[in-house]
């Protein structure tokens, strides 16, 4: 296992300590229970936006705490949903009286832990809405299963909801923005290499030098299919096709195209991916009006990429362009 870490059990705490040292102007880090919170929380009268999930996806979520995005983030152990007590304390810490939105990725653990936290918060009189992001088209959706995973759209939801909350919208309105992202966001990912969970010490799966996994999630879980390595353009086609087949929108619509790196893939490759993804979206008549290219929702040091397509209406474009100042995403201020 080749990582810049000390002891596996200290990875999350030390990463959070690093974040606290690096961004005292933007965030505070609370330990035991662990959460990252906007330095001026709670913002009176503003809806609080909270997310959380296992660690190992940095900058998501802690890196998106700040102005115009998340008010707080709860990091779990690596790839493990955080616990209700973290979420409850963070919810309290960011409740400015206008209620709190929980942005939850659709994993059984996240769902259950956030559910318990929301129940406890409501019992204390805090208004809580939860929206579950489930955008991964690599997973077959069904009433009888856990449904689709939440992946790339989460980053976009956090930006858009954060901007909406910053504008002073109500909890319902902010949650409505999140529901639009939930409805309109579609993603799919692939891996060139496995990641290694620190406390495990060896790769989660073995991928021969000439093979790749298509349809992976963000936890080193195996994907939909394994196959021989292909040129980037063919890979992008394999990711874009299921997305395009699944989107509830059509030629002429405006979209945001998000090409994400899984942690071990350099930017030079992401631009090669973006090139083809943009071409395919355009060929289908979609207008790429905004984009995001970089490693924003990662899977430790996994090499690979995921593509997210999100339809954008006028309001969402304005929310996207609104100022944001967080360790991981910043513009306009």
């Amino acid at each position, binding site marked *: 296992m080749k990582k810049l870490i000390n002891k596996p059990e200290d990875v999350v705490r030390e990463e959070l300590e690093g974040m606290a040292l690096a961004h005292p102007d933007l965030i505070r880090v609370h330990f035991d*229970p662990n959460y990252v919170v906007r330095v001026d929380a709670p913002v009176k009268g503003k809806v609080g936006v909270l997310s959380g999930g296992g660690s190992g996806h940095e900058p998501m979520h802690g890196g998106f705490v700040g102005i115009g995005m998340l008010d707080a983030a709860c990091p779990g152990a690596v790839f493990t*949903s955080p*616990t209700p007590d973290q979420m409850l304390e963070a919810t309290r810490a960011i409740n400015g009286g206008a209620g709190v939105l929980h942005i939850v990725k659709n994993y059984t653990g996240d769902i259950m832990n956030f559910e318990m936290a929301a129940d406890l918060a409501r019992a204390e009189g805090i208004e809580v809405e939860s929206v579950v992001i489930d955008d991964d088209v690599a997973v077959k959706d069904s009433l009888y299963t*856990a449904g689709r995973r939440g992946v790339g759209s989460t980053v976009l939801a956090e930006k858009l909801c954060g901007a909406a909350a910053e504008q002073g919208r109500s909890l319902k309105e902010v949650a409505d923005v999140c529901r639009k992202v939930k409805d309109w966001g579609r993603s799919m990912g692939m891996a060139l290499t496995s990641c290694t*969970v620190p406390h495990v010490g060896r790769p989660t799966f073995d991928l021969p030098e000439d093979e790749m996994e298509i349809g992976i999630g963000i936890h080193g*879980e*195996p994907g939909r299919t394994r196959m021989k390595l292909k040129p980037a353009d063919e890979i992008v086609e394999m990711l874009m096709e299921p997305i395009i087949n699944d989107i509830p929108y059509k030629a002429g619509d405006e979209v945001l195209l998000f090409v994400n790196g899984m942690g071990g893939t350099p930017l030079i490759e992401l631009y090669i991916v973006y090139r083809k993804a943009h071409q395919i979206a355009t060929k289908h008549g979609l207008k790429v009006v905004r984009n995001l290219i970089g490693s924003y929702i990662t899977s430790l040091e996994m090499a690979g990429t995921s593509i997210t397509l999100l339809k954008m209406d006028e309001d969402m474009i304005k929310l996207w362009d609104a100022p944001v100042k967080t360790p991981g995403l910043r513009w306009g201020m």
Partner: protein
Amino acid sequence: MVITRDKVLDWIKRYADLLAENRDYLTQLDAAIGDADHGANMDRGFKAVLSKMPEMADKDIGTILKTVGMTLLATVGGAGGPLYGTLFLQAGMKTTGKMEMTLEDWINALEAGITGVKNRGKAELGDKTMIDALVPAWNALKQAAENGSNLGEALERCARAAEEGMKATIPLVARKGRASYLGERSAGHQDPGATSSYLMLRAAADVWRDA
């Protein structure tokens, strides 16, 4: 033939030991169809439980089980945390104030725990989850009691049924939890949560055998 408060603590310790021993094994099972953390999660949770042993030492069984449940909720995370947390919490509710349990009490407590798990996770038998170990195990326990088995016998039947249930998850296609993302590819692997549930009931059978 009763399970004393001290025996309950012994059971928890034994289960904690089994989880520590099987940490890598559970992780390996989870790596195949999940995210390679079930062993670490359960071990972290039960290490935290062990650190609470002093404060549990003089408590009733209900308080002990609820303390275990709360500790798991706050330290395990993932799917395992709320599920095992709920199991212990609900079992604790059924045993409030008790300094010892009869076989009957245990059947009721376990039933409450399993019902809690079902309500929380919405998994059914055959979804390839811990439910597939727990439900047959409880059925066997209940049956044994009805057939007049003594505590040790009944617990052994229970543990064996859990083991069978656990092994029976191997051919299943997962419909709940992280393994469900794999679809057909999840078949051929044993469910990690069913395995940790079996270990829990195996610990009970071993520790309470001569209660």
